């Protein structure tokens, strides 16, 4: 059986009414267990979101468990966070005791290692999520442990700082491609060929935005200050506060414009066997997503935060597209190793996967 040229292969069929009981009971259980339930809460929330996500004619399935997330977090704390913390204390003691050279060296090594581990964590989180995502009984994964990616994460970001940071788009694109090129679904490897072309304009705008914004604010203030004879009238002060918010919003807008194009371009550069991918969210969609988050949290006095996962997942799914066809007989089971524990490192660092 084949499904030809589905335009919107991804659809989200969840409703917030169905999700609310999950979100609220998760909140309750997380509170009464002093936060320990949050691993199981994450698994429960994902199981719902995945199960209401349709790809072509069948639903995704989240097969991860709270127990493995808990185990992963525990391992990350014992094997990585505590030793690094210990080394850091040692470095401080050495510096205080007058061994500045040795202490500084250890401190630098710890900082580098930490940075490498952030890269490894991001890689492994993606790997874990693919390995736990099933569609028609088939899952994804990777056999790459992500250590090389960890080093790339450090040196590519370092290179990204060259030329006053103008290499950063290259670093982001290159890391995205490296990460996804190591992933697979079923028997097929992902191919990520995202390009930097076309991103530089918006990136330079991000660079200039704070200066432009503050400059414009300054210009706008001149008449207000002059009218007040060098002192600021209350109305003028109000204008300044409003203006500061304006600058903040303006900078956010410009950064969002860059990120929207970056994300679109990265997804469009991806393919899996005969499938090509696309992402249709434009800058305004991202802005609406984040303003919606803020409004939701503010209006509900914070409780709405438990719906943010839902909103974001829905956002990604509804804007994600796939073109091509899937040969279900050729889509055989992944041969990659199944993970034994969850995204522990990532949980410890508290990061997202994309």
């Amino acid at each position, binding site marked *: 059986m084949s499904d030809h040229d589905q335009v919107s292969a991804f659809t989200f069929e969840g409703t917030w009414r169905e999700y609310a009981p999950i979100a609220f009971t998760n909140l309750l259980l997380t509170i009464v267990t002093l936060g320990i339930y949050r691993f199981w809460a994450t698994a429960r929330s994902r199981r719902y979101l995945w199960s209401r996500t349709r790809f072509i004619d*069948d639903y995704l399935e989240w097969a991860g468990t709270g127990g493995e997330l808990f185990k992963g977090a525990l391992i990350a704390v014992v094997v990585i966070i505590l030793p690094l913390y210990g080394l850091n204390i040692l470095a401080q003691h050495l510096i205080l005791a007058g061994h500045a050279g040795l202490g500084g060296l250890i401190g630098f090594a710890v900082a580098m290692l930490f940075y490498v581990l952030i890269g490894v964590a991001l890689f492994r989180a993606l790997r874990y999520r693919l390995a736990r995502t099933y569609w028609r009984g*088939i899952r994804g994964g990777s056999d790459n442990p992500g250590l090389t990616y960890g080093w790339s994460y450090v040196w590519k970001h370092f290179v990204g700082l060259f030329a006053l940071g103008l290499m950063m788009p290259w670093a982001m694109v290159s890391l995205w491609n490296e990460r996804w090129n190591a992933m697979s679904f079923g028997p097929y490897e992902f191919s990520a060929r995202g390009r930097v072309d076309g991103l530089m304009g918006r990136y330079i705008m991000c660079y200039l935005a704070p200066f432009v914004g503050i400059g414009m604010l300054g210009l706008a203030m001149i008449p207000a200050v002059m009218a007040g004879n060098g002192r600021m009238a209350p109305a003028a002060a109000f204008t300044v506060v409003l203006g500061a918010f304006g600058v903040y919003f303006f900078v956010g807008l410009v950064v969002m414009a860059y990120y929207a194009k970056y994300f679109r371009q990265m997804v469009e550069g991806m393919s899996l066997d005969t499938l090509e991918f696309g992402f249709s969210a434009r800058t305004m969609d991202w802005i609406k997503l984040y303003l919606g988050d803020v409004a939701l949290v503010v209006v509900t006095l914070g409780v709405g935060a438990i719906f943010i996962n839902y909103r974001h997942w829905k956002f990604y799914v509804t804007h994600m597209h796939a073109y091509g066809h899937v040969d279900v007989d050729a889509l055989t089971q992944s041969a990659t190793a199944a993970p034994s524990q969850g995204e522990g490192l990532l949980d410890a660092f508290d990061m997202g996967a994309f």
Partner: protein
Amino acid sequence: MSAEVAAGELFDGTSARRHAVQVAAAGAELLLAGPEVPEERIEPARLAFIDAPPGALVYGHADRPGWRLRLFTPLPPDVAALLPAAARFGGWIDRLGLGRAALLAGLASAAVVALVISLPSWLGPLVPMGVEREIGDGLLGDLRQHSCSTPDSEAALTALAAELDPDRPPVKVQLVRMGLVNAAAVPGGRVLLFDGLVQQAKSPDELAGVIGHEIGHVRKRHVMQAMLREFGLSLVLRGSQTQLAGTLGQVAEMRYSRGAEAEADTFARARMAAVDVSPADSGAFFERMAAKDPAPRSGPLSWFASHPDPELRAGEFRAAVQPGRHYRPALSEAQFGAIRQACHDDKRKDEGLKW
């Protein structure tokens, strides 16, 4: 008879092909069959509940990764009876029910929090006095350059402390050149008496009350408890005396629990009674303190204040006076005078402790 059959779909975990299947109950086993799959009997114990999307139930198989059986609801009762139960929250929460599980977990968490909060109270007395002494010396040093001491004042304070507290090793009472109207029990079994309080005291009995109270903190191990509560292990680990004034400031401002303060008061009154010193003047002393600072520590709110209500304390000390009993002064006029004069007579070059 013909058994009812459940309709469903099967993914075998090897390819993404979907197979139409039918499942029927066959004794204690499930009979699975379909046009594209070989008929097989499945042991229900090998099945694992995965999910319950609208209109269906999804099961996996313990030995077959990716194997998924999706059965459309409603199911025939005999098939449903063989299938594993649906899980919602996971493990023991499903077994107990959400309400009871949340209640139990809440109680357990409250117990854990209570344990952690009360940890210093029962851990404090377990720390050997020798360790506390080392920590105290490490933190504060011997403080000799900040204290006022003449041979007469030393003798008077040692005598008063020995009388109030015959325990060994003796608690050292040190007079500190500071205007603060206060006294403090510090780590290592020492009591600091600030000159401000001495100058304010109207009789030796008042000093006896205050010193007795602080010795009470030492003997009841409140100092270690408070240190553990306020600084945790960081204090024990920090060790060396980095900034004496800052550390001393922190230690002097250490708060004891209301219960600890009452315990120290009780200790002081008992010791004073044992050596025939009247608690009356101490009562008056607390009354004067209350008059200086009347508002914040009165009424029902005083329960939450870190220091006991001075009026209440004054009352308790006055009530401890036994009518008709013959009391003697805690110190002779000469001894009291020596203590009051110590900071004036001790001419060592020190302008006092800078906080």
